[in-house]
């Protein structure tokens, strides 16, 4: 239980863990909380402020902002987790394979990574979303592919450093092939660095997906999603500011918590 020892666990880290656990718990358990349904419209209670019935007020269609904010993380989290898993798989395999193979294979894969990094992500996502619609599978795959290159770069660089280590040379001298060396010697030793990079990309993916929703190409209304909620509520920002501030706070707290944890690792 290193985490709870008195020895210098930074408070920021504890706070970040708590925020993450809270986000996870909300996303998992919000359906069983019997809150006001997120799509229940009430023309008589439009754009109300904070009240006992509506803790964070209501939006332009009279929907309960509190309920929508709590539900709003679910689509982002699911898509971001799937996309991050895809990005991690592609990135780690591509990067470490390039380093292990060396020579022209490394050169070709590195240029491919450079090319993918040069493509403007949001514009490509907009294109894909306009062509294929708001299909979550296609969006996850595209996000995964677009956010894999930074992970691949970090994996490649860390693998290259390890290749010069004596224990990797010994593995070669003892007859280890590329795959066994990758699994036994390289991955356990680059995992920490690569994991940090993966966590960083997770936050970028969440932000990218929310941006898509903000632009109307992420989730389909009336599904609650933070980016979409910000877009919908910004016209009434002066009447009920909480309806914009609440999804912004949720999005920001999730991204900050992940980044703070990465910083403390």
């Amino acid at each position, binding site marked *: 239980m290193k985490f709870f*020892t008195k*020895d210098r666990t930074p408070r920021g880290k504890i706070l970040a863990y708590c925020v993450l656990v809270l986000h996870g718990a909300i996303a998992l358990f919000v359906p069983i909380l019997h809150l006001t349904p997120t799509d229940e419209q009430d023309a008589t209670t439009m754009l109300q402020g904070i009240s006992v019935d509506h803790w964070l007020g209501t939006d332009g269609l009279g929907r309960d902002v509190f309920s929508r904010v709590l539900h709003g993380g679910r689509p982002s989290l699911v898509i971001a987790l799937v996309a991050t898993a895809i990005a991690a798989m592609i990135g780690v395999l591509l990067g470490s394979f390039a380093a292990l193979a060396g020579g022209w294979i490394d050169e070709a894969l590195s240029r491919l990574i450079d090319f993918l990094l040069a493509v403007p992500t949001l514009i490509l996502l907009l294109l894909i979303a306009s062509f294929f619609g708001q299909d979550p599978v296609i969006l996850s795959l595209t996000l995964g592919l677009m956010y894999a290159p930074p992970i691949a770069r970090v994996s490649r660089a860390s693998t290259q450093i390890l290749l010069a*280590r*004596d*224990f990797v*040379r*010994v*593995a*070669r*001298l*003892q*007859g*280890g092939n590329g795959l*066994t060396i990758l699994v*036994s*010697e390289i991955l*356990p*030793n680059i995992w920490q660095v690569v994991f940090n990079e993966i966590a960083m990309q997770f936050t970028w993916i969440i932000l990218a997906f929310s941006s898509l929703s903000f632009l109307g190409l992420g989730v389909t209304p009336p599904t609650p999603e933070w980016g979409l909620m910000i877009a919908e509520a910004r016209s009434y920002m002066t009447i009920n500011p909480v309806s914009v501030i609440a999804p912004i706070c949720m999005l920001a707290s999730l991204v900050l918590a992940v980044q703070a944890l990465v910083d403390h690792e």
Partner: protein
Amino acid sequence: MNNILSFDQVCVEASSAKAADFPILDSISLNLQQGESLGIVGGSGSGKSTLLRVAMGILARGLSLASGTVVTAGVDLLNVGPEMRQKMYGNKIALVPQSIGEALSPHRTIEGHFKDTLGSAASIEKIVDALVDSGLEGSKFLHRFPHQVSGGERQRILLALALVRSPELLLLDEPTSALDRDVAAEVLATISRLQEKRRFALICVSHDFEVVRRTCSQLAVMNHGRIVERGPTDHVLTKPTDSYTKALLDSIPKPNHRIRESHSMGPNSVISANKISVIRGTKNRVLDSLDFEVRQGEVVGVIGQSGSGKSTLLSVICGLVSPSSGSICTGDGFDLSIPLAKRPLNITGAIQLVFQNPDDSLNPKRTVQQSLSRYSGATVSQLIQVLESVELTSTFLSRYPSEMSGGEKQRVAIARALLTQPKILLLDEVTSALDVNIQAAVFQMLAKVQQSTKMAMVIVSHDLELVASFADRLVVLRDGQAIEHDSAQIR
């Protein structure tokens, strides 16, 4: 007379929960006056480097001063601000660090380094004088960059830099560990000459008694953070009273004492190389038309200065480097110039290499058992057997590299090489990272292994005495060529 350095009952402890079993420094008391010189000898982890740092007012992260006081040149450096410490450095105390390769900025000329140190007081005459004092032809070096000077010259430049502002106390951390034998002797002579002339107080930390014998009049031996023995250098060296000091002294290889008796070797060669060359870059010939042969059961020692091609020779034999020209083959005629990945498993297994640095040769994330069995596929009983052959017990199987000492790690690395039952074992400076008493133990273990398995060995080292007391035959390399083959002549 004034004390330049005084330690009074100094205890330094590690503050973290994963602390060592003993204090890092335990009740250290010592006084050093002008013109005195104190050598500190001890194994790794004995606290000698911490003592040097504490003298400079620095405590590494995780360490705290539990009790005692340290006064350096009249100032309690551990309790003053960084500005005051900075003022003292160079003026009152100076340090020559161990890693001379990293101590000079690669983008500054030698003159630039002196100007940084001297500030407005810098003048060409002063810089040249300082360099000449350290035994260098001063004006030649002014405009050179650090990579344009040799190791010995770099050490002299660092010495001149440390002394240019006439400090009262000079601290040397392993002053010759990066230098070849002959160069080291010259540098040590310069240090003693300067100390006699300038009368500064000197502390010299080393794991090598010879370094301290040549530079210091007083000697302290440290073990587990304590000074176990202290006295005039000659007296401690000739009549040691403490058991640890005796053990350290006993483990120094003595002239004409053999760790391993020579044996008759088989008629067939295990490796034979004919005019092999390795060229790096465009024209740097690391190996230059070298002929080399190892016969069955033979132990060949390869010695030479750094950069002479010793490690490259081993890399060529085991396949990590392919020769640019020439032929190399096994006794059965298998061509070893093909890359490692294309060699069949029985050939890779028959040639095993043990690397110099034990900290780097084991995967830090795997236990000994995982490291040993990963590629050999050996059973637990085979693993225990091989661990016993390197004088380790089965309890090591579950340990991670971080839970072992340098000597233990090196034994595990040797055990791993033995598991494939090699016909030839290549040892690249396997003991240079180890303390002198552990070096001897590892070599004795290797002698037993060699006697029981009768395998051929190639031992690369820059330590002539150690290799000569172990090998059947010596090969001296210089600039990639073998210049001598006869062990009798060398000794």
